[in-house]
């Protein structure tokens, strides 16, 4: 039962974009956390399964094919790192994203050396998790044609170029990252905190970066509007922003 590459091309009257559905296995011993992840990822249209122990995880990866594993390092009956080792033995092309509360450099390096694709430290924003999953997916599966289309907007991830109605629009690095973050989390409220962390990482105090986030969003909006694009970004009272997909 190999559901590895499963693409859905959803084409509506005025929008056409690639909607990639993935089969994801969440290996996390905390049911509540797993529930959050599964809910969020399912809402994004993915097929998501959850196991809580090392043994169950091994059972699953031996029996079924997954495109993505979201893996906690510390499991009640073993280490998530061993799951990666087993996975590599299976010779599958499944990607691995490690999530761990253990913010230790050693684990990170070890995990990445074993073949994990990325590493996320708890606590994380679900929108960030999703963005990372998408990034891994694009890196692995869309090799040459890393392009995202959304109505009149076109983003080329490889060249980092942005086109509105096929006219290039100059974006700063941060604005580009911001737009990409929005496009991977469309129709969702994204908090200021998660945007700040996505753009500046853990070490910048979010408190200072909120104004910064606001400023970048203002600039991004202005640039899209100036290129006669539509303003998709809505401010969600006090909390954050939402990239609205207009109802057809």
């Amino acid at each position: 039962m190999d559901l590895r590459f499963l693409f859905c091309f959803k084409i509506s009257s005025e929008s056409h974009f690639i909607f990639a559905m993935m089969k994801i296995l969440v290996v996390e011993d905390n049911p509540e956390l797993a529930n959050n992840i599964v809910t969020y990822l399912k809402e994004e249209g993915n097929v998501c399964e959850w196991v809580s122990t090392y043994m169950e995880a091994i059972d699953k990866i031996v029996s079924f094919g997954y495109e993505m594993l979201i893996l906690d390092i510390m499991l009640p009956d073993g280490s998530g790192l061993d799951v990666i080792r087993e996975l590599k033995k299976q010779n599958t092309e499944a990607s691995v994203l490690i999530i761990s509360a253990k913010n230790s450099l050693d684990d990170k390096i070890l995990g990445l050396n074993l073949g994990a694709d990325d590493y996320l430290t708890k606590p994380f924003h679900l929108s960030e998790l999703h963005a990372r999953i998408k990034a891994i997916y694009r890196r692995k599966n869309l090799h040459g044609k890393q392009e995202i289309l959304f109505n009149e907007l076109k983003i080329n991830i490889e060249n980092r170029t942005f086109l509105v109605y096929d006219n290039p629009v100059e974006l700063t690095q941060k604005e580009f990252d911001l737009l990409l973050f929005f496009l991977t989390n469309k129709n969702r409220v994204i908090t200021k905190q998660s945007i700040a962390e996505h753009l500046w990482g853990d070490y910048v105090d979010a408190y200072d970066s909120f104004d910064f986030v606001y400023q970048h969003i203002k600039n991004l909006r202005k640039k899209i509007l100036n290129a006669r694009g539509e303003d998709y970004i809505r401010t969600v009272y006090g909390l954050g922003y939402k990239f609205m997909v207009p109802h057809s």
Partner: protein
Amino acid sequence: MRLLLRTSFYYVLITFVVFSLGSIILYNIFLNEIQYETDLYLVERFHSIINTLGSNNTPNTLDQYKLQIDTLDYVPEKVGQESFVFNDTIVMHQYLRRMENNRKMTGIQKVNESYLRLTLFDVIVESDDIMDGVFNALWRLFLFLGIVMVITSFLISRNIFKPFNKTLQQLKQFNIKELRPIKLERSHTHEFNLMNQFIEQMTEKVNRDYRNLKEFSENASHEIQTPLTIAKGKLELLLQSNDLDEKKMSMIESAYKSIDHISKLGSSLTLISKIENLEFSDLKQIVFSDLLKKALVDFEELYQMKQIKAEINIMDDVKLQNNPDLLKILINNLLTNALRHNQEGGRLKIELDPSQLKIANTGKPLQISPEQLFERFKKDKQSGGSLGLGLAIVKKICDISGYTIQYSYNEGWHRILVDFS
């Protein structure tokens, strides 16, 4: 003052007092003894003169130096032993022609039917001579004793205090963070052994407590991350529902903000303990100038937003041997700090040369004392929602990298200076 010098000083002082009192006692004993001997001699002479007189010699023939014989024309009340009277007197010395202290004895004895009163004199040693003698003898003794005492106490205490000094040396090197309890040698002195035992137990306990506390705070800041992730995730999911009005949104927002604050706090504390545990130990040669310039590009937008005028003076090719992550955190926290405590339309100066980094920004004076600035959770009222850990992290990084950091405030300028040497 050294313990040895101190005890020696007191010993000398006490010896001095004892010697002074001793000299008075000695003087009196000498005086009494001399008097006693003189008196004995005078009595002896008295008897020998009487004997001579008894064998038919006339008193006149015996009248000689230091002897006076009078014949009494009355019958005295006391005769012989009972009539002896001693006292001190002054007599002209025959040869020296000067007055000398003498002991005088008078006694009456019946010789050949007549009563004779004999007065005998003898020179006695003068009291100031005795005093001189006693003083001379004693100060030499005192000096000798003093020298011997100082030398011996120095030698002995050097030996006796050897274990004590060793203990002291080890205590000096004791570092609570090294988690290595002190092991001390056994000595021959009971008190030192007791002390060493106590110190060993104490340092072991201190180490254990420190380790427990450290582990606890590390575990605590680690363990809170999972529930915080859950809570955060639930709120994020809740946000996606469509039936939220502004009131509900604002409640979610404030819950979300608080959770975010705790989780930031947790990760900052974890970061501090990671720095303390030397987890950032892979050092590299880093071009600090480039790192700083790169960070300033990110921060530039922020400065512009606050309309802060920045004067930047970065020397090229300033290299440091350190962990790149640590230096990034250092720069980030310092720049964030300079920005946060700056005012709208303020100014900022950044200077870097091979020996130091200077960051100065305009702003209101501190409400807390400058010494507290680098402590955890010591934050100014002006800093609003900040964690109060940024500069504590900077300080930690400086400490483990061997840099010194200084803060000063002068005429509206906050200055932070990091010295790399």
